[in-house]
């Protein structure tokens, strides 16, 4: 089956994620963060932040609601039974802090086939309420036997 590249360039509606203190703490504990900036409100405030600071990899949490519609888009056409997460890149701007409202937009960047393997690459751009880009994510999914 030939791979359709029709969806390349497609964008999805931006999704706003409101960053909550206990969600930051829950995520930080799940990944074993020990830095008090992520766990102790007083320590975060003493360091000059308004509230708990999200670990950089919290990007997966605030970008997820925007990524869903792209990943599951039938127009993109990934076969989930044969899909694996092949690679990931994040480039970060200012830290995300509890209370921020982060807006994420997703684009289909690339769809290509190499030796019967499909590569589906998505880009997420996340911006905070001050207009700063807090994270650009490049998500590569690999589908065998396309």
């Amino acid at each position, binding site marked *: 089956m030939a791979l359709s590249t029709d969806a390349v360039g497609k964008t999805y509606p931006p999704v706003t994620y409101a960053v909550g203190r206990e969600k930051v703490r829950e995520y930080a504990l799940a990944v074993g963060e020990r*830095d008090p900036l992520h766990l102790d409100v007083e320590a975060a405030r003493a360091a000059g932040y308004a509230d708990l600071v999200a670990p950089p*990899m919290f990007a997966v949490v605030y970008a997820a609601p925007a990524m869903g519609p792209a990943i599951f888009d039938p127009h993109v056409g990934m076969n989930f039974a044969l899909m694996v997460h*092949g690679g990931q890149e994040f480039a970060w701007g200012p830290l995300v802090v509890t209370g921020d409202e982060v807006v994420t937009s997703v684009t289909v960047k690339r769809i290509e086939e190499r030796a019967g393997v499909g590569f589906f690459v998505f880009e997420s751009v996340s911006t905070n309420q001050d207009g700063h880009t807090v994270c650009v994510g490049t998500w590569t999914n690999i589908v065998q036997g396309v």
Partner: protein
Amino acid sequence: MNFEAGAQLPDLKVTPDKYLSVRYAGASGDYNPIHIDEEFAKAVGLPGRILHGLFSMALVARAQTEAAGGPASLKRLSVQFRGMGFPEQEIVVTSTVARVRDGVATVHALAEQGGNVIVHDAEAELELP
């Protein structure tokens, strides 16, 4: 920590407990049953529940931010996922400074578990204080 080309950052060693991937599913919102349901994972041909790749990537990120003095230092991280990670086996993240230029260290890292590399070709950019 002295950042110069060739320097090793401290290893990060983590043994995810049996229910880690359940907590990570809740924390991240990724409830793919291959991570939380032993029977489902086996039914689709896996040896058992596997860890989320993005959890393993978060360990690589943590090795960097702990070495460089906090979350603001990590400006970029790219990784490739190849092997599978499992609960209840130690993961070791090793990191080596490749170069330092204009106050930014480029670090090459990997995460391995029981001799299998589960995060390959990690490259981080760390803004040094």
